[in-house]
């Protein structure tokens, strides 16, 4: 039960967070701190790379929802990429896939 958060730049010039490990009730506060700070800027552009996130539970979804709400308020963008089938299912069930931009990892090369 561990989560590594690597920070970099996305191809579109925005912020990129690569999440490696498990995103659950124990690790979500760590992401919440980093992510909410990044999106708390007018016009913030943040991409979350979840291709190495091998587990995510509803607490993780909660952090993404909080970030999404903040992004909407600040006229920014939040992009999620590299969903594993399990995480994709979670996005589908909760209806997040209708409102958050999900990108195919292959299209989004990172620097």
């Amino acid at each position: 039960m561990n989560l590594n958060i690597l920070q970099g730049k996305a191809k579109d010039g925005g912020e990129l967070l690569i999440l490696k490990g498990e995103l659950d009730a124990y690790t979500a506060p760590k992401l919440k701190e980093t992510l909410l700070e990044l999106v708390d800027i007018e016009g913030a552009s943040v991409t979350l790379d979840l291709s190495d996130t091998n587990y995510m539970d509803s607490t993780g979804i909660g952090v993404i929802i909080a970030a999404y709400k903040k992004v909407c308020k600040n006229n920014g963008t939040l992009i999620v990429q590299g969903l594993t089938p399990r995480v994709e299912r979670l996005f589908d069930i909760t209806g997040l896939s209708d409102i958050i931009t999900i990108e195919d990892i292959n299209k989004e090369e990172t620097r």
Partner: protein
Amino acid sequence: MIDQEQMYERYKRLLAEYMEGKNEETLYNGQLFSRHMIECGVSPEDVLSVHIEIMREFFPNMDERLESSFDFLLEAMIGYGLAYREHQNLRFKQRQLETEIDIAANVQQSLLVSAVPEIDSLDIGVISKPAKKMSGDYYHFVRDEQNFLSIAIADVIGKGIPAAMCMSMIKYAMDSEPEQRTKPSAVLENLNRVVEQNVDPSMFITMFYGLYNEKEHRLYYASAGHEPGFFYSSQKDRFEELTAKGRVLGLDRSTKYREYEKLIMPGDMIVLLSDGVTECRTKKGFIERGEVVDLIRKRMDRSAQEIVDSVYKELERLQEFQLRDDFTLIILKRRV
């Protein structure tokens, strides 16, 4: 309690005994005595000053430099004394908090318990177990005079006290729904507005809401991002996913919910669950939804309550009796 004089005498006796004979037993008795002193709330610097006093008594002609080193040691120990008192204080506060949580958990239990109605045409089984003291899962059954049964199952994201407090809010919002039965989609739309307004942005609620018409045996239902349940068709002898799409409560104020409808034939079954059932993690990894279906299928000839109890026991065993998430499983079986 131990008084100052008693402690002094006992310590002196043990110390003298040890200095004379240096035997292990006295050393051990000293250790036991220290536990007793801790129980009585004697601080480390109190023990030290007793020690110094006794040493002065034993060696009146002690080297002055040795004697002053004791004073220095006493000063150096003061920080430990403060830490010790802080620790005592925290232990007391922790005990107080634990009592309060126990009381709150009991209040929540009595608040959230929903009686399972007795219905001629339906056999209903329910089990709901919290992972910690307080549950973020919620279910309720309400039956009206026109033989409509409403069924709700919900999960507040997050666990423990914040989730439970949020659950109580939902419970009140549901209780204040108008008396006459409301369409499932409308219920979810109302609750969505309540949650969106009131809750911390990273908190959300998933809910399945169904309305069962006992005369026509039709289930009308809608879901707000809730883990899909299953529908068992006795005619096809097959389990299928009880699909219903909809956003979680609290995500977007203007969300509309789609309503679904299903005809329930004799022998058919509706299985509702929280993600604590399907997110069950065993040594081999996560269990698959198909495995949950298999567990139910193996027990299908039993009563609905027996099925949910037995499935819970089996999944609890597979997780080595450590629930990671709140667990709720409901089965409704149309009697043949």
